């Protein structure tokens, strides 16, 4: 994914953060969201390999192999942070102690199903902590490029790859749009990024959704 698209998505995702939330950011694009926490909002970042209170990346030369996130990037620890083992980490995650998680995906569908760990017969990375995060975090955000590299929709009628989580996705943020799932209406298109139209979104989205009455066009600009 192009860096500028990543930054657009991360910036919009950052604006979903609420003051005081405890969050976990997946590897790759989701990690960038840490750079887009709005002013006046304090969030606490947990990393599933065993730390909470993750701070900014240390300056070059000050990294430490034993202070890293789940993507092996060096981290610092804020005052009040602590380290723990994997069982305790997933007690936090599975036990509903995280307010939100942000994860990338291969596919997501209108039922809230997420498929992001394997392409049958091709690629098996493994689900890592994603299955637990999707199950345990109070709000599950999918942050992803709207379409796959070959241009096919990632927001599907129904996921075709093995699921990482069933009916767990709450919010989908792409470089083109933001969808939020409501208990009865399913996914609602709330925002369309500047440069895109409602028709554009319809054309590149197989997933069932409804358009919000007050859908915001030319969004993502703030």
């Amino acid at each position: 994914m192009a860096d500028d698209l990543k930054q657009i998505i991360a910036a919009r995702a950052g604006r979903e953060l609420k003051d005081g939330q405890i969050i976990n950011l997946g590897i790759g694009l989701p990690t960038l969201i840490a750079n887009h926490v709005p002013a006046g909002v304090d969030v606490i970042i947990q990393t599933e390999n065993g730390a909470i209170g993750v701070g900014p990346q240390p300056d070059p030369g000050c990294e430490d192999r034993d202070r890293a996130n789940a993507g092996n990037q060096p981290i610092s620890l804020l005052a009040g942070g602590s380290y723990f083992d994997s069982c305790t980490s997933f007690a936090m995650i599975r036990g509903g102690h995280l307010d939100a998680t942000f994860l990338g995906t291969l596919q997501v569908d209108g039922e809230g199903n997420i498929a992001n760990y394997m392409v049958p017969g091709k690629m098996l990375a493994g689900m890592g902590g994603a299955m637990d995060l999707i199950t345990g975090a109070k709000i599950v955000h999918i942050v992803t490029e709207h379409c796959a590299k070959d241009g096919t929709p990632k927001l599907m009628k129904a996921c075709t790859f093995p699921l990482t989580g069933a009916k767990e996705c709450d919010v989908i943020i792409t470089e083109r749009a933001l969808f939020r799932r409501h208990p009865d209406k399913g996914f609602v298109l709330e925002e369309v990024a500047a440069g895109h139209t409602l028709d554009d979104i319809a054309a590149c989205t197989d997933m069932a959704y409804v358009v919000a009455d007050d859908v915001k066009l030319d969004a993502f600009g703030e």
Partner: protein
Amino acid sequence: MPKNKVVPIEEAMSRIKSGMSIAVGGFIGQGDPLTLIDHLKTMDVKDLTIYENDAGYRERGVVELVRLGKIKKVVASHVGTTPYIGKAMNEGTLEVEVVPQGTLAERMRSGGAGLGGFLTPTGIGTTYGESREQIEVDGRTYLLEKALKCDIAIVRAHRGDTWGNLMYRGTSRNFNVPAAMCADYVIAEVENLYTLGELDPEAVHTAGIFVDAVVRANIDYCVLREEAYHNG
């Protein structure tokens, strides 16, 4: 007085025989027991089954044992950080089973804690979940995940005393704690070896009761840590 469990690496590792199951601590290089893995590379064993969060990072870690043909199967939550694993799997020289990370950690702990298993919501509604028995409790459905007991565990600690009390450093704690609980014979490599009583009894992460053998690390992890981010 708790007994001295410090032994030469050859003595501790000679417990490992072909066909055994081994729980390995660490998380893509953070806390991986590389001294013990390096020694295992020199041993005449094969058909090992590895339970670890991953298979190492890039070319370092359990992936090296896979390259040497010593590993039959890897059970991990993620193997994406060691591209060779996918290659070996596709070539049919290695079995790979992936399980959720929290489930794998908890399966190790359950084995060490004498439990038969546990009920988790993780995986419900997925293909993975179909491989497990489902049990309903008070109207909610869970997967039954079985406890894991291995023949051997190999872990790395930053500090350890002669009885095997262990303390880890930063995010290197990770799977080292549950791995050190779940095996019949637990081998800990320690970067820094302390006399009994030097470690704060309030701050021990793994009590020596869980550990069978203590080996001195022969890798300068402090140098490795400093170099890690400078050499890419």
